[in-house]
């Protein structure tokens, strides 16, 4: 049951991912890539478990390295995306639509 | 109610005051209409066409004028004609009162109630009977066509294997009804069009036709409640001339339509400005009827001023008599229908009516229009 449910979730997320993005102005290509790259740093959740869960020192070190790598990805990714987006001039602020 | 429609004596007049179609409209209201024999001849409309449309008879001018309760005509009557009108009858036509107000006196003396088409107010409601507008509209078109026919170059831009032909530059001075139609027509032909007017609202209207508006700072200008322009001070006229000088020099065609209601048209284009134009350029003074905007124009004629051709024909709409007659005839028809009392089958002169307050020149033996009292 569990695993099949996971596959359901997986399938739905894939479909959602495919639907979510349809047309992106070219100036947003890089920020979008960078922003979604930051999301893929979610693997940090696994890394945290690996680093904190104990086990051999080797394992812990492995986990810690994973945490560090993932943290770079997450922190750097969001930050750099934010910097890129800060450079844009927006159009009319007032009708900034809610998502 | 007996309606009579006389023809015109002026051999240059090509228009016909009433067309069979309007006869049909009016006889539908219950009017009895008679027309002068040969009324429509200039346009090839036969007397029988009028009869078929519901006219009761053709009558010679004298007989017709004597017996009519309502006279519909194009231009003002001669003093002799006024004299034979039935007292108390209603007379509708252009009266040209600003040039010569004596006809009003004659009409008043004869106790004729007269509506002067040129006094029709410029309101939304009155537009259907506004003959000044409907003729000016045609005049604007004609002015451009006259210029195009005489210009030694094309209006539109063309990029051809034998080089690029630059579009003609057209300057329209005065963006009232005639001016706007001139702008539209010149734009249609592909010219680069600039236009100028003193009324502040004109800029938007010019742009609404896709043309450029020439901005000239003159200080206070403004317009009357009727939408007519106010006359400028001498100093304003002077600075306006100066500012327009270089626009004229650039232009291949200048069309002037500036008028001031009830006054002589302002002189805007000086001889110097005309002489400063390129050889072969054309100037059309479409305000010739009220004295003209171009200093060196010979009213009614086509002349060369240096190497520039200056046209100052009167009554430009006469050059498209088919449509000019159609719109005038409709204006008359709409006017009569508007004030027609269907029960009593007669034209009712309500003094309190806004339109009549403007357009009525004489009533009950007196000149009633405040402009001429």
């Amino acid at each position: 049951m569990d695993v099949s449910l996971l596959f359901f979730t997986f399938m739905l997320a894939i479909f959602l991912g495919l639907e979510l993005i349809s047309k992106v102005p070219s100036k947003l290509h890089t920020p979008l890539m960078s922003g979604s790259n930051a999301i893929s740093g979610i693997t940090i959740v696994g890394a945290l478990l690996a680093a904190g869960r104990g086990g051999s020192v080797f394992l812990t070190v492995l986990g810690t390295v994973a945490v560090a790598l993932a943290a770079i990805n997450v922190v750097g990714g969001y930050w750099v995306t934010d910097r890129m987006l800060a450079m844009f001039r927006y159009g009319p602020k007032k009708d900034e639509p809610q998502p | 109610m007996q309606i009579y429609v006389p023809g015109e004596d002026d051999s240059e007049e090509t228009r016909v005051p009433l067309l069979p179609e309007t006869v049909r409209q009016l006889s539908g209201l219950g009017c009895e209409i008679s027309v002068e024999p040969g009324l429509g001849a200039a346009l090839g409309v036969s007397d029988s066409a009028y009869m078929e449309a519901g006219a009761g008879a053709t009558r010679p001018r004298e007989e017709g004028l004597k017996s009519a309760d309502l006279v519909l005509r194009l231009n003002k009557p001669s003093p002799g004609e006024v004299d034979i009108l039935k007292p108390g009858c209603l007379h509708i036509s252009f009266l040209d009162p600003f040039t010569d107000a004596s006809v009003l006196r004659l009409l008043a003396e004869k106790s004729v109630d007269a509506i002067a088409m040129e006094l029709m107010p410029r309101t939304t409601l009155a537009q259907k009977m506004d003959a000044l507008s409907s003729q000016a509209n045609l005049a604007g078109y004609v002015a451009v066509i006259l210029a195009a026919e005489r210009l030694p170059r094309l209006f539109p831009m063309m990029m051809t294997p034998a080089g690029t032909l630059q579009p003609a530059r057209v300057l329209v001075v005065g963006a009232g009804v005639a001016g706007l139609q001139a702008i539209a027509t010149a734009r249609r032909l592909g010219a680069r069009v600039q236009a100028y007017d003193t009324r502040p609202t004109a800029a938007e209207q010019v742009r609404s036709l896709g043309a450029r508006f020439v901005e000239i700072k003159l200080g206070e200008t403004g317009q009357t409640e009727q939408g007519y322009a106010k006359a400028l001070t001498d100093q304003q006229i002077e600075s306006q001339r100066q500012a327009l000088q270089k626009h004229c020099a650039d232009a291949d065609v200048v069309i002037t339509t500036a008028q001031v209601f009830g006054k002589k048209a302002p002189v805007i284009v000086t001889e110097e400005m005309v002489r400063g134009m390129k050889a072969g350029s054309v100037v059309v003074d479409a305000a010739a009827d009220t004295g003209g905007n171009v200093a060196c124009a010979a009213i009614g004629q086509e002349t060369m001023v240096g190497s520039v051709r200056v046209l100052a024909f009167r009554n430009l709409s006469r050059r498209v008599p088919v449509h000019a007659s159609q719109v005038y005839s409709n204006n008359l028809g709409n006017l009569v229908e508007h004030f027609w009392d269907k029960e009593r089958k007669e034209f009712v002169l309500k003094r309190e009516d806004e339109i009549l307050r403007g357009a009525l020149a004489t009533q009950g033996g007196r000149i009633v229009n405040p402009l001429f009292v």
Partner: protein
Amino acid sequence: MTALLFRNLAYLGAAILFILGLKMLTRPETARRGNRLSALGMLIAIVATLTTRGLSFQWILAGLAVGGIIGAVAAQAVKMTGMPEMVALFNGFGGGASLLVGCAEYLYNPQSPAGTLIAVAAAVLIGGVTFSGSLVAVVKLAGFVSGKPLLFRGQKLVNGLLLAGAILCGAGFAAEAGHMPGLLAALIILALILGIGSTIPIGGADMPVVIALLNSYSGLAACAAGFVLLNTVLIVSGSLVGASGLILTGIMCRAMNRSIGHVLFAGVGVAAGKAADQVQGEARPISPQDAYLLLEAAQHVAIVPGYGMAVAQAQHAVSELGELLQANGCQVSYVIHPVAGRMPGHMNVLLAEANVPYDLLAEPQDVNPTMQSVDVALVIGANDVVNPAAREDASSAIYGMPIVNVDQAKTCIVLKRTLSAGFSGVDNPLFFKPNTRMLFGDAKASVAALVAEFKGT
């Protein structure tokens, strides 16, 4: 139980924030806010994870601190021009982390069921490819090595063998119930080599597309790690990124006029030119969608109308497209060849009717000298007047006629219905040039489709 419930709710919240964030990142007005929402989601996910019972924090904090600081400093320090490398680098680290997570999980619990082992192998394979591939991209982009594609014979074969080997290792590893960790080690090595091998043949110009693709991979790696840990937020976020990254890759590819197949399997960065010269005789069609992407990204567009625009009565649509391009910040000129159409001034009448301002009209001699700087030349139903045979082929009947040199623009899109010749009957080699794309169909319909693409944004 409540902690678990809380954690799962937090993960749910994080996933929702990621979804909203991604959605908002696709619109300029909301992009920045979207990115911050998604960062908030990440924070929530991390904090929630830290509530797991029995975690010891010293290592975690060390890792977080080191990684966080490095990330922040790097992100702050990088110059705008260095952004792509930086993104690639971050992405590689993400992939590396997934690889390590997979390994660690296996080592922690070697007796996992086969399903988990398959997931471990997938995480390691995809993570490894992402890691080494991203590093190659960084090195190429930063100019440490030449951006040129490194090509050698049999490259595709080698990559194919590497991939097959990696899959075999993974399958064996899972089949042996994890009893052969050596296979895992081999898998890691093969994955790293594969990542390098599949990236070096790609030219520097195509790197943005490659990074987008590797980004999609790193999502999938995270997803695989999620299956290893049976963790939903990993699966959901990872597959979201994987799928949307794939779409983004496609979008970017088309905006750069590349096909994804070419990017991946040939050294397209420079080879496009070479390869295409050989395929003379084969015109390349383009869809309105792809043409839109090219136009949307263009800084300077030259529109060259011809008789076909008149036949199609496409002038109003063309004028509208021109306005949309200008509104998009692009410089637009209409290049009117003197003999275009069937009468002198034919194009002028039509464009004037469509209210194209005279100032935008240009003659060929004004535009030809700077044609190289034109991003897209949009040829709308013109043929003879853009026929390079007039310049190149002395035997042609139109040799010597000055033409609009659209073939010298960066890209040339030709709108016509077929490949047939124009009035002069002379065949047009333009249609077969490597930088030419044919947008087949009635010109009015094609231009309307482009307009629709622009407005549909």
